[in-house]
């Protein structure tokens, strides 16, 4: 293995020259701004699984559940380290080494296993370190981590014990837990280096570390050109583990993690889990079939557990999640009316209508609600219509009140089509108090007002909406870069054009992003 890439292996300081081979020049697109990100809980799990062969199972829950920030669990702003994270990383670093099959792991990374022999110790540190840190280690790093073999020797332990100490330390080190890059900039921008690009690609597409093949491509300069990046990304998208990222995206986008381990009235934990799996599978099948992302909003296919199929009026194919065609099903088109989604975007305490409308506005149209004025006092707006009135009736009452209309007009109508779905996505035509429920309405999108009579019409309008399609692009950019929505600008349009031109599919989206300068470069974007 070579240590010549000091600029790659020595970000923490030292004698690296700070520059090196990189991608070809920018082409005039918006340049990137790098946000160092910690591995998410899921990325930690996948990386340990792929590199060390350890399936953590429920032990991963020693780490806290990641919080969605602006909808995403991998937002740089949200990936802080709390006390629980530090404790979790510490505990997992002791658990993981005990679960490793050393016959396999050492066979992959060392040619000898003699404690006290420098060659045997440094070989492991170099080879395993490169897999865990996603780049070759600097000489200083090799020496530092290999010293832990000295500790093992001093305690009269074995080579394997020494290896365990090395792994413990590596699993808690910043080189493992963070996607770190050499942020030294000499000029207006920096080009992302080969190993850094391998890591960016790998965590975007696989939610895990680069494999040996990808690192080999990086070492040979195969990621130094836009064409090289695209070729490798295309290969990676063909690998089965690319579904990890598309699944993570849709789980974040539609807040589906809320179905994991929770229950509601009429919905057990197991049923909720079935809906989660079904909603993810609905999206995944869309990705697998190479269909445009936005059309998942009015897809005629749903993956459902048996009980939910019956909610659709379809004969169940069994308890498990199965594919169902919706051609003959009314008012049940697209992923939004999937009971999994209907459940997660509902809010029976606040009112399902407001929560669903806000969701569509913020996560499908990428618009934020106006903040109510500081002197707003809700005392005047009580439940004067009585408990029997439907949410639609209250909404229409708000629309008639200028104090309320300013905000609620933005999002209430976006949920009118879903009035017939209860808090867990069951279809009903009357409320619990016998009031009729409706699915018609009209909403404003840009400068146009659109009318609809049914859910089918409404979700088709959303799927075809230019603002929704641009929002899909913005959401993917946020997911890929870890940025806040407000930090993104013209790159949305630039990526969007390429994405649409290439068919609007998930694959087109990933390729449009990785080929763009926003992914391949970084500006300072901060005061050093």
């Amino acid at each position, binding site marked *: 293995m070579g240590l010549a890439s000091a600029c790659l292996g020595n970000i923490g300081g030292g004698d690296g020259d700070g520059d090196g081979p990189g991608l070809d020049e920018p082409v005039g697109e918006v340049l990137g701004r790098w*946000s160092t990100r*910690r591995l998410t809980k899921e990325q930690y799990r996948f990386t340990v699984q792929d590199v060390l062969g350890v399936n953590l199972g429920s032990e991963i829950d020693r780490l806290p559940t990641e919080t969605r920030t602006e909808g995403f669990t991998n937002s740089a702003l949200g990936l802080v380290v709390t006390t629980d994270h530090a*404790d979790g990383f510490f505990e997992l670093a002791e658990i993981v080494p005990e679960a490793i099959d050393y016959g396999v792991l050492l066979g992959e990374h060392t040619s000898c296993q003699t404690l006290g022999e420098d060659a045997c110790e440094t070989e492991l540190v170099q080879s395993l370190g490169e897999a865990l840190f996603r780049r070759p280690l600097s000489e200083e790093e090799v020496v530092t981590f290999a010293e832990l073999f000295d500790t093992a020797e001093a305690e009269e332990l074995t080579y394997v014990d020494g290896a365990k100490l090395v792994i413990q330390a590596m699993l808690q080190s910043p080189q493992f837990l963070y996607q770190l890059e050499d942020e030294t900039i000499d000029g207006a921008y920096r080009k992302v280096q080969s190993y850094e690009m391998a890591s960016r690609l790998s965590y975007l597409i696989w939610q895990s570390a680069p494999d040996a093949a990808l690192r080999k491509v990086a070492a040979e300069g195969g990621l130094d050109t836009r064409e090289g990046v695209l070729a490798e990304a295309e290969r990676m998208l063909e690998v089965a583990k690319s579904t990890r990222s598309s699944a993570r995206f849709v789980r974040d986008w539609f807040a589906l993690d809320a179905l994991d381990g929770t229950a509601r009235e009429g919905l057990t934990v197991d049923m909720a889990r079935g809906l989660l799996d079904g909603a993810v599978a609905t999206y995944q099948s869309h990705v697998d079939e190479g269909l445009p992302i936005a059309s998942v909003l009015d897809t005629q296919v749903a993956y459902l557990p048996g009980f939910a199929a019956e909610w659709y009026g379809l004969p169940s194919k069994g308890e498990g999640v199965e594919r169902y065609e919706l051609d003959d099903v009314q008012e049940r088109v697209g992923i939004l009316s999937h009971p999994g989604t209907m459940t997660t975007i509902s809010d*029976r305490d606040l009112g399902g209508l407001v929560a669903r409308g806000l969701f569509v506005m913020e996560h499908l149209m990428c618009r934020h609600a106006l903040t*109510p004025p500081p002197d707003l006092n809700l005392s005047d707006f009580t439940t004067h219509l009585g408990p029997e009135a439907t949410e639609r009736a209250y909404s229409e009452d708000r629309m008639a009140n200028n104090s309320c209309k300013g905000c609620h007009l933005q999002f209430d109508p976006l949920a009118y089509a879903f009035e017939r779905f209860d808090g867990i996505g069951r279809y009903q035509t009357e409320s619990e108090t016998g009031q009729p429920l409706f699915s018609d309405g009209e909403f404003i999108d840009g400068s146009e007002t659109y009318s609809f009579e049914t859910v089918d019409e409404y979700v088709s309008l959303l799927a075809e909406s230019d603002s929704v399609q641009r929002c899909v692009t913005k959401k993917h950019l946020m997911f890929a870069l870890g940025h806040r929505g407000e930090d993104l600008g013209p790159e949305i349009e630039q990526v969007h054009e390429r994405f649409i031109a290439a068919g609007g599919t998930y694959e087109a989206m990933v390729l449009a992003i990785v080929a763009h300068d926003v992914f391949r470069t970084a500006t300072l974007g901060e005061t050093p």
Partner: protein
Amino acid sequence: MTIRRYRNVLSRRTLLRGAGGVAIALPFVEAMRASSVWGAEPEPPARCITLFFGLGLPKAMQQEGFSGPLEPLAPHASKLRMFRNVDMSEARGAGHPAGGTCVFVGEGSSNGEYSAGASIDQVMKKALHPNGVPTPIGTLAVGNFFRRAHGLYQRIRCWNEDGSRTVEPIEAPSELFAQLFGNFQQPGSEPDPEQQRKQRLRRSVLDTVVDEYERYAGASSKLGAESRVKIADHLERIRELEKRVFAEDVLEGCQVPDEPTDPDLPYGLSGATEYDAVQVSAASFQAAYRLNAELYAMALRCDLVRFGNLMFESSGGHTAFSGTYEAPSHSYEFRSEASDHNNWHESREYDMRWHAHFFQSNIAYALSQLDDDDYLEENGNTVLENALVVLGTETGTNHDMDGVFHAVSGANGRFEVGDFDDARVNAVDIYNTCIHAYDIDGNIGSQAHYNGDVTRMLA
């Protein structure tokens, strides 16, 4: 390629740091005085703890003084300055996301997912301890709440300067106990040789890890400024972890409480549906909060932490209490079919009044723990008297920002306390007066709404 390296059977790390073994048996002084807790510091250390309660307190009810929902605070009136006319228009809007991100920060966020800046406790922590706090825990956030659907503003009260959350609140008393006291060996127990070796190995590993974080956070790092801050924050968490794992002497001068049994409540994400109001027994909720308050107070007395927040109900609430609240003058039956938020939202005056009274009775309990004169500090004062305690909430009357109740403790003689303060003031003015009283330069919060320090507060 093989790298040659200097080697010694007793490695550098072993020689320098581990040769003597790690003593984990703790000196355990029964004395309640805290003379040794502060170490060599002659003055009480600067501490800033924020106390939060959700949903606000209507301005008219504040004006009722101790004959209204503020009645439970009466025993602590001599130790507080209570502001009843706080303008929090720096929240930049009405409602929970605006108020929930503004309280203790002094500026509302445009997005309930992050703040506009650091909270006052974090401002003080960073300013007074730029190289890391000397306590085992840097920031301690504890709270009882269920709402977590719409944004971090609901449960996060401790914010970093970049708008990210500093820590997540701990909910279960047993979890809080474990974090504060769980790693300490009881006095008199024999050290286990195998455990001692395990600790030496842990020390070697963590020394290696810490060196790496220091390298990346240091001046020669090739990371940018923002990235270095992230690494430095992580390093701080590891240093805190070390103090827990290798607990030596840190409990001298304080008393480990009994391990609590958690009241029957759903805790954490597993217990709470994301969107629905959670129906719980008010008695259990209160019991959990009070256990947490007791542990928090002990953590302060033991100098395990100096900065953080204790929260009673989240911003926006949405807890549906059941059972009876026995106030001194009234017995109130909770309407379990409605969440506390709905009582505010729908301006149910009677229900809101007794919910608010219930809230304040628990805030008063937390204050009584901080003010327990069985635990006087070296200068003869209680924690409440010595520390900066800022009590605040998110809204005034039903989601507006007019009359957002606040109170401030004396902070070891820095502030005049003992009465209501009804002069108009912005929350950001109060916060800045607080930090300036600790000789911290600069201002926090919205400069557009900052009218200058509240000099009448100063002692």
